[in-house]
Structure formats: structure tokens, C-alpha cells
């Protein structure tokens, strides 16, 4: 995510008119990535791209991109909340599971 100014004259990795995809990415042959217009980083879906833009290119965002980032961030927060509930459940399960196992075997 460094070479933001390079053009796309190197063959093979370039997609469309944006900057070329950096070396650290490795696209599967059937991939249809959402590519960052600033640095060429490819993402599996639009939401990840929007989040990436908001985090790594926060200074270069226009108003609509900023709104999109805030929406994506918010929608991710919802999913995080449900993940946390599951994680909490797993912790409780682990704790009592071990507690019961100890009471039986130790």
C-alpha cells in the first residue's frame, strides 16, 4: 500500500485505469476484486474497500466516500456485537466445561 503514484504500465497485474496491484497481494485467477483507486489494493468486497479507504486514505476522502465509510463502520459494529455475544458464550462454555471436568477428574 505504498506506491500511490505509480502508473499501470507494468503488464499482468494492472486492472483498469487505477494504480497497479502491489506485490504483496496474490489474486486468485477467478477473482473479481474491488480495487482501491489510491493504492491499488484489491479487496474481496466493496465494504472492505470502503473501510480500507477510510482507514488508510482518510485525508483523501470526498463527502460521499466519508458517508460510505461511516455506514460500513456502523454496519460492522452490528456484526461485531453479535460476534462478541458468541465469544462471550464460548468463554462461559469453556469456563464451566473446565470447571465441571475438574470437579469430576481432579
Amino acid at each position, binding site marked *: 500500500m505504498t506506491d500511490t503514484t505509480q502508473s499501470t504500465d507494468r503488464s499482468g497485474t494492472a486492472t483498469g485505469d487505477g494504480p497497479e496491484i502491489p506485490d504483496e497481494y*496474490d489474486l486468485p485467477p477467478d477473482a473479481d476484486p474491488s480495487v482501491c483507486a489510491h493504492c491499488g489494493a484489491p*479487496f474481496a468486497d466493496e465494504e472492505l474497500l470502503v473501510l480500507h479507504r477510510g482507514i488508510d486514505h482518510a485525508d483523501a476522502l470526498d463527502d460521499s466516500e466519508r458517508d460510505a465509510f461511516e455506514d460500513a463502520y456502523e454496519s460492522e459494529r452490528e456484526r461485531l456485537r453479535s460476534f462478541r455475544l458468541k465469544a462471550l458464550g464460548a468463554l462461559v462454555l469453556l469456563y464451566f466445561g473446565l470447571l465441571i471436568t475438574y470437579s469430576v477428574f*481432579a
Partner: protein
Amino acid sequence: MVGSSLRRHCCRLLVPVLAGTLFVGTAAAHGGSLGAGSRESIRIPTWLFLLTGGGAIGASFLLSSFVTDRLFIREFHGWGRDAVVPARRLLVALGHLAGLAGLAAVVVVGFLGPDAALANLGLLLVWVGWWAGFTMTTYLVGNSWPILNPFRTITSALPTLDRDYPDRFGAWPSAVGLLALIWLEVVSPLADDPRLLATTVLGYGAVTLAGAAVFGPTQWFADADPVARVFRYYGRVAPLTRDDDTGRLRLRLPGSALTDARLVDGLDEVAFVVALVWVTTYDGLVATPLWRGFATWIVGVGVPPAVLYPAALVAGYLAFFGAYWLAARGARRLADSYVSTRVLAQRFAPPLLAIAAGYHLAHYLEYFLSLAPAALAVAPTPLSGPATGEVPIGVVPGWFGALNLTFVLLGHLLAIWVAHAAAFDRFPGRLQAIRSQYTFTLVMICYTMTSLWIVSQPSVTPPFL
């Protein structure tokens, strides 16, 4: 990394040397393996002990997944204070001198001093002073090996050909060198025989001087030398570091530098980190009864022991590397990311250093505390051995077994946290970052359980050596 084998040696040595001293009963009991002590203090079935260790890793992953504030994580890891070191040149000069004096003592006393391992200052300096004590300072305080390293001091004063170090070699020579040193340590009585140890140090010195003369000390110690790399990597865990640009000392939170993407930037360096983790396991594994049974069977089938040990070293290493690589591939898939497996493997390798440091501390703190008095006692009369004919051995309290297990777990917990922070640095999605850690956590759970199993086993002498 040479932990339990030294313990084995220590165990074998302690009983005859200490007979007749005040400490004999307790010293022999505490010279035993890490596992023997810890099993006594816990008294639960081994499988439950392993399950609990694995569960602790899983729980810490779940707990760290509750911290999803990017800014907090970044600030936490970026925290630091700078300070100017007073009389820096004087300290560096003293460090050079101390390193040179240590090397001279190891070689001279190694060849001319007493034969008994515990009476020989050269041998105690290497294993107790340097490999146990000094290594602890590299991850608990900071890496001062570039200053102390006597070979570096010597080569810096000598002319060099300054050939370009081939880029394609990278860290591979140091990874191979590390595996070779461990193999040598396991199959030879390097911790018992002062002459052999002094010869080995001279051999290592010859290779190092030759390498530094051809490529220049800076390149040699940065790329090819395994020892310098071990300490440099351990130093990344430490709270103190030197800022290369300003020469100032920087204080940071322990382990916080392990999220730095530049720390490991090639497959060769990943290979070295995995080697550092694997050699600890290998060293303990060959001292288990299971290995004894396996080795007896396979030598009975017709495989010579001279092939068995290096083959097991390489096979186990490849298995470790393979497991780590699969975890990186799994992370790429689970995080739905296009970042290459190789970049992910690089990014999540530094947390493993915290694990390696935890194991080192668990293996060596007790060893260091019990043998440091011996080193101090023989220091005044290095060539003739201790004046009284006896060597004092420190006795650590019984709860040290539990403390050692705590170090192992702490190393893992730090690794889990650092990997979590690195994932948040690497991936734009927070849930994506958490998902990327599933496979790495799984690998860490398996590794913890394997390691705890090894330390829970009685330590036996590796067969056919």
C-alpha cells in the same frame, strides 16, 4: 533452546559432584526436569493439564477479540519514551572489553581449567552466564549483543574484503546454522566437556571471523550469523531498544515492537523464527520416554542413530513450518483477503518470538539461579577449581515449577495479543482481523499442548548418544 538437555546434563552432573555437600538432597531433586516439578505440584491427569493449557490460549484469544478499538491498539503499541544514555562511549568500550574477557576465559579455562563441568568457569560462563543469563537479558531488558559480541569487536578491528553478501542467501545460512548448533548440542556432550566446548567456540569463531572478513562484519552479523540473529529477534520482545538514527535509548511496552511489519520481511526470516521455536521443542522431545521408545524401535529396524537425530530435526522442522504455512493460508481464506500467504506468514511470525522467549525463561531461570553460585565460587581460582573442592548450588523453592508454567503461558498470551494487534494493523475490517486469527490460534493451541506434554514427561537421557 538447549534447555532441557542442559537440564539433563545438569541432572547427571549434580548428583556425583554434589555428593557430600550441604545441598545434596534438595539440589538433586531440583536439578531434574521442568516437568517433574510441575507435575508434583499440580496432581491432575496429564490430559486435563494439557486441555487447560490449550483452553487458556483459546480463552485469551476470545478475550483479546473484545478489544476492537483500532486507535487504542495503535496507541498502546506506539507508546514509548526516549532517553539519552550518559557516558555512552565508555559503556560501549566496557562492553567490548567484557565480551573479549569472557571469550578469553571460555577458551583458556576451557582448555586449561578443571575437567569437572561444574568446576570449570569456562563451561559455566557459556551455559549459565551467557546462554541462560545473558539471553534472558536480551528479551527482558534489551539486546546488548552487538556491543558484547567479542567476534564482532575483533572483526571490526580487522581489514575486510567487503564483498557483497548475496541477497538470495538472506537469512537461510543463519536458519541452517541454528539447526546445526542445536543438533551439535543434542548429540554431543557440549554441556559436560569443557575442552569440547572451547573447541566448538573456536570453530564457531573461525567460521565467523572468515565470514566477517569476506562480507564485512555489518553484513555478516546482520544476515548470516545465527547467534546475532537469535539475540536481535529476542531483543524485539524487550522493553529497551536503541534508536539507530539518534542513538538514543527507547523505552516501549514489552512485545509492542512485534507488530512492526518490517521486522520479518522474507520467507527466510519466517524460516528462522520457526526454527527458533522448533529447536526448543526438539531439545525437549528427544528427552521424553516416547522418543526413547520410538528411537529404540527405529534403530532396531536398521536406521543408524547418526541419521536418526538429524533426520528427526529436519522432519520436525518441516512439519512445524508446514503447520505455520497452512495457518497463514487458512488466515487468508477465513479473512477473505487477497494478501498473499507469504506476506501473512511474515506478518504473524514475530509474535512467535514472545512464545520462544517464554519457553527460554521457563527453562533457564531456575537453571540460572541454581548454578550462578557455582560460577561465582569458581571465578576467583578459575584454573585450579574451587578452593574447598566443593561447589555451592542454589536451591529454588518448590513453587518454581508453577512459575515456569506461568512463563510459558505468559509468552503465549503476549503472542496472542501481538498477533491480534498486527491483524488490526493489517486488515481494514475488524471482524476480518479477528477471523484471520482463527487458524493461528488453533496452531498455537496445538503447540502449547505439545509443549506442555513435553514438560509433563519425565526427562530421560536421549538414547544412542
